[in-house]
């Protein structure tokens, strides 16, 4: 569920991850500093959407990206429409959606590993503060690997509680915590056994 990377050979796929992330950050900064009118916002939205097919991503990826943003558009746009003005709603919501669409292109065309390499390089100066970037990068990718596992635990626990017909309130999360912590111990053993850490 979490790896949003779509394999491909387009221009963006081949571009180094660092360049893409820097470009994304620049766009974010520019969009929040430069005020765009309604027309300008519409143009950035179209450009960000067009970037998906242009980089060789299937149309489905673009539709998915928009679909994920549906609530944001409805809630944020609707609220701003009510409380401020339609134009304000359009530009503010449009800016956020543009950014998120751009982020989705970068995510879909960049291997998580490549992003993490960039992160590691960005963290390298921390070495002078006594922080080793190696374990940091490992922890980050380990987290990505663990998200579906923990989500699976949550499903198991939900099913088990439904099956027992129990209404537990906050206690409901106890088995989830137990499963998660035991899994953490198993993973810790594997990290040690594979010689990756002490």
């Amino acid at each position: 569920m979490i790896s949003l990377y779509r394999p491909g050979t387009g221009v963006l796929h081949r571009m180094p991850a660092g360049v893409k992330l820097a470009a994304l950050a620049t766009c974010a900064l520019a969009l929040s500093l430069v005020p765009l009118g309604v027309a300008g916002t519409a143009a950035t939205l179209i450009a960000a959407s067009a970037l998906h097919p242009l980089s060789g991503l299937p149309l489905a990826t673009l539709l998915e990206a928009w679909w994920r943003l549906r609530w944001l558009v409805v809630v944020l746009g609707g609220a701003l429409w009510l409380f401020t003005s339609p134009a304000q709603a359009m530009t503010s919501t449009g800016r956020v959606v543009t950014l998120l669409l751009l982020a989705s292109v970068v995510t879909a065309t960049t291997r998580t590993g490549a992003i993490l390499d960039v992160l590691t390089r960005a963290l390298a100066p921390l070495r002078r503060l006594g922080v080793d970037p190696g374990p940091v990068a490992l922890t980050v990718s380990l987290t990505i690997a663990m998200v579906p596992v923990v989500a699976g635990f949550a499903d198991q626990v939900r099913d088990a509680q439904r099956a027992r017909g129990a209404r537990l309130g906050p206690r409901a999360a106890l088995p989830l915590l137990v499963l998660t912590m035991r899994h953490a111990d198993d993973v810790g053993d594997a990290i040690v056994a594979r010689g990756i850490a002490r």
Partner: protein
Amino acid sequence: MHVSRTRSERASRAEATTGGAAIALDRVRVAVDGAVLLRDVSLELSAPRTAVIGANGSGKSTFARLLNGLRPITSGRIRVQGLDPRRDCAELRRRVGFVFTNPEAQILMPTPAEDLALSLRDLPRHVRAEQVRTLLELYGLAEQGDVPVSALSGGQRQLLAIAAVLATGPALVVADEPTTLLDLRNSRRIGDLLLSLESPLVLVTHDLELAARCDEVVLFENGTVRSAGDPASVIDEYRRSCA
């Protein structure tokens, strides 16, 4: 041992059972996000003890989950003891006891005694404490009543999970690979316990010796029933299909 005691104990408590699982599926299809998990499953189960076997991913767990409405069907018709999981979901969950592979997901309280008390929450407080103690003894967990559940062995955990399910007196027990994590002795113990129940049983398992001890076996393949019937012949078919 306690297994035989269980049988008589439960015989006295159990309501008159319907004389079998009383499960009927008619052209059932289950699809999630475009993936078809079950297709065209038609089946009538009436034996007291039915085993469900098949390869990883063949649809066994999906089938088991239909039986108490944990997983909804996409099309077709299903009746479990006369109930429609879609309409009578709450009632069905009360009647069907479900045992999962990993007991840890199923144990909801920090200690065995508390977990059993949860199953018996409808009883008045003082009867409940009494009953919890009886159950702990019945399942050989008398000494573990108040220890952290993480200190139980795998076999003890699975015993506790089953005890918590049986404590509510279910009219049908569904177990999804309940012996997978256990050793020879524990899996025999749990297997004996399940097979000796008064209530009808649907048992998903990879343990073919255990399946052979049931009254009927259903073989899943690729999301549908490949065959169902006499244990020996269905198991033989499965073995041959794997070779």
